[in-house]
Structure formats: structure tokens, C-alpha cells
């Protein structure tokens, strides 16, 4: 045994081994999780980014952006051998190639996901259909995902607007107006628990209430309300927290100057709670944008690639003349709210489960996932920037 040189001499004991062991175990677990995260994200980025930033961009479009993927509608991908050479073409290109009008003769298989390719006929372009062999088609694998992007954005904006209005109002009631008692505690507990309900349950609730009982069918409207109810618990809880974080002195000071309750809340509490509410809503946005289950039966059609500006209001529905012009915006709004949309998470679900996974479909599968990540990140970034701006103006 070596002589101690001072009272604080380091000793090697069981305890010190245990300390080191715990440290390394914790560290290892953390890094393993991190590793998985890196693998997932890098796969999506590696495989998905070529679809967006790929070399296949169309000449004359914005540099490095493969605008086709972002800004066109999905198409069926045709893969075939022509004179022994493998060719991949979107449906439109294919029918031009074989000199056939897709509308005139055989329409491209839209929904039957693994339909047999159209029977080859002799074309006007001089392509001999017997030169085309090994013809396969993959739904949605060509073209882009523009309707899905638009659908996601519409769903997020609408449902967040509904959820924020409802959520902030009820949070104000719960934390500023209601007398704290067993009933309010029960309501609060119910709301918190609602946040843990699986999203598929909200989906079913949406089908039962909005789609069937209210007769809204599968529509943007039904999707908005279903998603709004799904994020409401998060928003109410976050709003209540933010309201509580506003110092009591602001309320008392305001009331002592002869303000009414609503004046106090509106002028001297809500403005200071808003940054917090918006920040916490980021979580809600990510959830609204990301959930598939709630929109599965309420808002999304796999085949819906109708954009809001494609809505066709037939003149028969409107009165003729001046009245018709007045009616038009309402008819448009009605159709807009009640048309089904598609959305990125739902598209990911469809293209990864309903069409084969191979080199031809990877582009749309990972590309959609990649774009989806970008969209969510951009929404989050925007909210954070908004918060920083609001926060720097309102500080106490």
C-alpha cells in the first residue's frame, strides 16, 4: 500500500468503477440512438435529394432544382425495353413516344395500382409495338408531388387556424375566467389525456362526426376539423402554460387601473403569452403535417390531384347573369372546402405500401420523404423566427 500524500488522495474503489461504468453506458446508449437518427436522416437525404436537386432537371428551369418533381402532378411510370434498351418514361412521354393519345384510346390506369399495360397498337410515330418488351407500369412513380405539397400546406394552415382560435379561447377561459374547482380540474385532466389518444382514433372520430354525421364526405373541411381536434389538447395545454407565465402583476396592475376582465386579458395578458403559444404550436404543426391516420378516411384521396385552382364550377349551378357572378365566389369556396386533397404523409404511405419497392420507385418514395422533411423543417423554422421577432419586441 502506497503512502497517502494528502487527505484528498484519489482511491480506486468499487464505487469509482461503478461511476465510470454508468457514465460509459449512458454515453453509449445516447450515441447508439444518435447513430440511428443519423442513418435514417442520411438515407432519406441521400436517396431523396436527387429527386429534388437531381441532374435530370429540365432545361430552362431554376438551376439545380428538379422542378418536375416539385411542381407537377404524379404520373404513372412506364418501364420497358425498346429494342433491348431499358427506357423509363412518364405516362405522358410514353404515349407521345408510341404516338397514342392516352385519352382517346386506352386511358392510363389511374387507380388499379398494378394494372396491365395498355395493349400495344401500331402508332403514328412509326414505333412498332412489338419492339416494346418487358413493359411494366408503376403508379405515381413518375411526375411530381405538387398536389401532395399543396394539400399538406392547405391542411396545415386550415387546421392550425381552427385549432389556434378554439384552443386559445378555451385556454383563456380555463386559466383566466373559470373558478378553479373540481369540474375545471376534471376538464383540464380530460384535455391533457386527449393528447395521448392515438391519431387513428381521431381519424375514426372524424369519419363518424364530420364525414358521416355532418355529411361533409371526404373533404378538406373534414380533414381540417379532425386534425384541429387532434392538436387542440397540445395547443390548449401550451396556451394555458404561456398564459400562466405572464406575471400576475400585469393583471392586477391593469385591473387596479379600472380595466375590465376582457380588457386586461386582451391588452395586457394575451400579447405577452402569444410568443409562447406560437412556439409551442410548432409541435402541433409538425403533428398536423405528419399524421396520416386522421386524414386517411377524412380528407385524403390517393388519386386526388386536383388543385384548388383546378376546381371547375359548372355554370349550371349558378344563376345566370349578375347573380351568377355574385354566387361564384361562394360556389368556389364551397367546392374548395369540400374537395378531397392529397397530402405528403399519405402519399408516402401509398407509394411505400401500394407499389413495389425497387430502383424505379425509389425516386418517388425517398423523394417524397425528403420533401416532407424539408416542409416540416421550414414550418418549424418559420415559427421559431416568428417567435424570436415577437419575443424581442415583448420582453419583461
Amino acid at each position, binding site marked *: 500500500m502506497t503512502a497517502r500524500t494528502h487527505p484528498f488522495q484519489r482511491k480506486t474503489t468499487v464505487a469509482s468503477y461503478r461511476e465510470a461504468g454508468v457514465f460509459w453506458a449512458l454515453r453509449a446508449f445516447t450515441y447508439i440512438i444518435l447513430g440511428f437518427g443519423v442513418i435514417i436522416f442520411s438515407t432519406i437525404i441521400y436517396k431523396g435529394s436527387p429527386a429534388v436537386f437531381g441532374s435530370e432537371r429540365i432545361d430552362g428551369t431554376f438551376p439545380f432544382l428538379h422542378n418536375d418533381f416539385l411542381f407537377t402532378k404524379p404520373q404513372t411510370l412506364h418501364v420497358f425495353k425498346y429494342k433491348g434498351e431499358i427506357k423509363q418514361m412518364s405516362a405522358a412521354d410514353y404515349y407521345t413516344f408510341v404516338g397514342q393519345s392516352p385519352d382517346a384510346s386506352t386511358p392510363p390506369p389511374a387507380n388499379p395500382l398494378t394494372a396491365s399495360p395498355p395493349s400495344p397498337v401500331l402508332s403514328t410515330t412509326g414505333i412498332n409495338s412489338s419492339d416494346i418488351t418487358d413493359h411494366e407500369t408503376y403508379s405515381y412513380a413518375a411526375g411530381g408531388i405538387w398536389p401532395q405539397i399543396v394539400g399538406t400546406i392547405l391542411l396545415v394552415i386550415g387546421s392550425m387556424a381552427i385549432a389556434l382560435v378554439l384552443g386559445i379561447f378555451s385556454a383563456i377561459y380555463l386559466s383566466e375566467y373559470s*373558478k378553479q374547482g373540481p369540474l375545471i380540474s376534471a376538464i383540464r385532466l380530460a384535455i391533457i389525456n386527449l393528447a395521448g389518444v392515438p391519431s387513428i382514433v381521431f381519424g375514426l372520430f372524424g369519419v363518424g362526426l364530420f364525414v358521416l354525421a355532418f355529411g361533409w364526405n371526404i373533404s378538406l373541411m373534414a380533414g381540417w376539423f379532425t386534425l384541429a381536434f387532434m392538436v387542440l389538447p397540445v395547443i390548449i395545454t401550451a396556451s394555458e402554460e404561456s398564459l400562466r407565465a405572464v406575471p400576475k402583476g400585469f393583471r392586477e396592475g391593469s385591473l*387596479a*387601473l*379600472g380595466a375590465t376582465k376582457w380588457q386586461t386579458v386582451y391588452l395586457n395578458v394575451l400579447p405577452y403569452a402569444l410568443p409562447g403559444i406560437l412556439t409551442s404550436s410548432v409541435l402541433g404543426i409538425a403533428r398536423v403535417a405528419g399524421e396520416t391516420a386522421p386524414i386517411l378516411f377524412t380528407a385524403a384521396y390517393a388519386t386526388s390531384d386536383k388543385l384548388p385552382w383546378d376546381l371547375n364550377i359548372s355554370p349550371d349551378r349558378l344563376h345566370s347573369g349578375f347573380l351568377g357572378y355574385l354566387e361564384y365566389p361562394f360556389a368556389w369556396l364551397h367546392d374548395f372546402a369540400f374537395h378531397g386533397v392529397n397530402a405528403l404523409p399519405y402519399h408516402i404511405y401509398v407509394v411505400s405500401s401500394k407499389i413495389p419497392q425497387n430502383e424505379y420507385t425509389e425516386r418517388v418514395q425517398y423523394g417524397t420523404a425528403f420533401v416532407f422533411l424539408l416542409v416540416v423543417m421550414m414550418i418549424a423554422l418559420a415559427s421559431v423566427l416568428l417567435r424570436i421577432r415577437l419575443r424581442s419586441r415583448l420582453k419583461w
Partner: protein
Amino acid sequence: MVTTKASLMSQTQPTTMMDESIPTTQTTEVVHTPVATPSASDKAARLNAPTIIDINNVDFYYGQSKALHGINFPIKEKLVTAFIGPSGCGKSTLLRCLNRMNDLVDGTRIGAGSIKISGVDIYDPSVDVIELRKRVGMVFQKSNPFPKSIYENIVYGLRLQGINNKGRLDETVERSLRGAALWEEVRDRLHTSALGLSGGQQQRLCIARAIAVEPEIILMDEPCSALDPIATVKVEELIHQLKQDYTIVIVTHNMQQAGRCSDITAFFYMGRLIEIDATEKIFTNPTQKQTEDYISGRFG
């Protein structure tokens, strides 16, 4: 003090009507010096000054627990009344009863008795609490400027009443800030954030904000407890000045402060009023043993 004696003595009306505007006819100079041993007749004058708040056998409850037991005394007009007593004795509770700030706390109620301001029972259902609070301003222990500009802090009360006339607001800002002895310090930065002010300035801003709505009574709950001695002196000087126009009720833990700036002192213990008298009487020759013990620092 001495200069106000005559006017106080001549007033014999017990109450004034609530909707009377604040009289500003006093021609006397402001006395900044602490209360010096005044004559016996001055004391009597103070105790006989007209009553503005009449607290009548008030019992007050937080839920089941009784915080005030049969409090019964008048608060005199245009004088400074100090509430002293050990922590938890109910000073803030009573103060907050006077502008019904306790309404904000769930489960509170006045069990018995009444509080009358200018003869009106303020807990009567016919009373508009908003109007009451405009007449009875409050300054809190922790200064609570709003995170707005100095200017917007002062005009907050006026904007609530729908007054948005620029000239009127500007005039009020200057008058209130001068009234709170803050004008010279902030006149060049009225539109910067009130949170940039020092603690003492913030508290004086809160006083300015309270007088901007022209109340008759100002309640102050330990207004100097977070301030350094110099800022405290400024607020005390301000209180001296304000009592020309306002009735002031101040809660304090600082005996010297109560001695310096109040005319009448009420001593509370365990939710009961033990003694109320002219300040110098309380501090030099209290009738109750408990008061003496507290003032001499033997408990509390």
C-alpha cells in the same frame, strides 16, 4: 404639516360625495421634512378629519380560514394612514379589500360588516367594481410596469376609458410624471421601454400610472420594500406631496417609514386591529402592550 392644520380643523363635514372632483385649492407649500413633534391640537385635528373610508366590523375569509376579525375603524380624508404589524397579520388583505382586489382570489368573502367609501357600501351588488377601482388606485409591493413604453404605461388607464386624444394624453403624462417626481428623469425617453428604468423609477412610474386616472384614494402595499434607501426617500417625499390631493393608505414593515410619512398608524396583530392613533402617539406612547412590544422590536 403645521400649515394644513387650519384647513383640516375647519372641515367638519364627515364625508364628501364620491363624484366630487379632486379639489386642488390647497395653497400651502409642500412640506418635505419628516413629521416633527406637532402640537396636541394638530393630532386632534387629524383624528377628527372627515372620514372617507369607513371600515365597519369587517370579517374576511379566505375559504374557511378567517383572515380578518371584526376590523372597525375609519380612514381619514387627505391623510396618510399606515398599516403596520407582523407578517401575516392581514395588512395586505385589508388593503386589498378596499378596492376589491380580493375578488380575484377564488373563495374569498366578507363574512360580516361593511366597507363604505364616501358613504357607499363597496360590496353592495349595485357597485361597479371598475368604477370603484378608478377611484381607488393601487401601487403594489413589487413594481409592475407593463412591458410597454413609459408613455403607454401612463396612458394605459386613460386608453381603457376610450380617451385617445393626443393632447389630453400628453398633458396627462406630463402632469402624472411631475406628480410622481419622475418627469425630469424621463422626459427625454418617454417612448422607450419602462423596463429600462431603475427599480425606484419603476415604482414611481407605477405611482404616476395610478394618479393618471385621478383617483381619490391611493393604496400602497409596501411600495418601498424593494427599493434602496435613496429611492425610498424619494417615494416618501412623493407621498408627502401627494397627500395634498389624495388619501393614502400605506402598508409598511419599516417603522421609520411609518413614523416619517404617516399621520395615522394602525397596528394589526393576527387579523385584529390592536390600536389606531396619531402616528407619533403610537410610536411614543402606545396604549396597548402588544403595540409597544412590536414597535420596540420585541416581536414581529
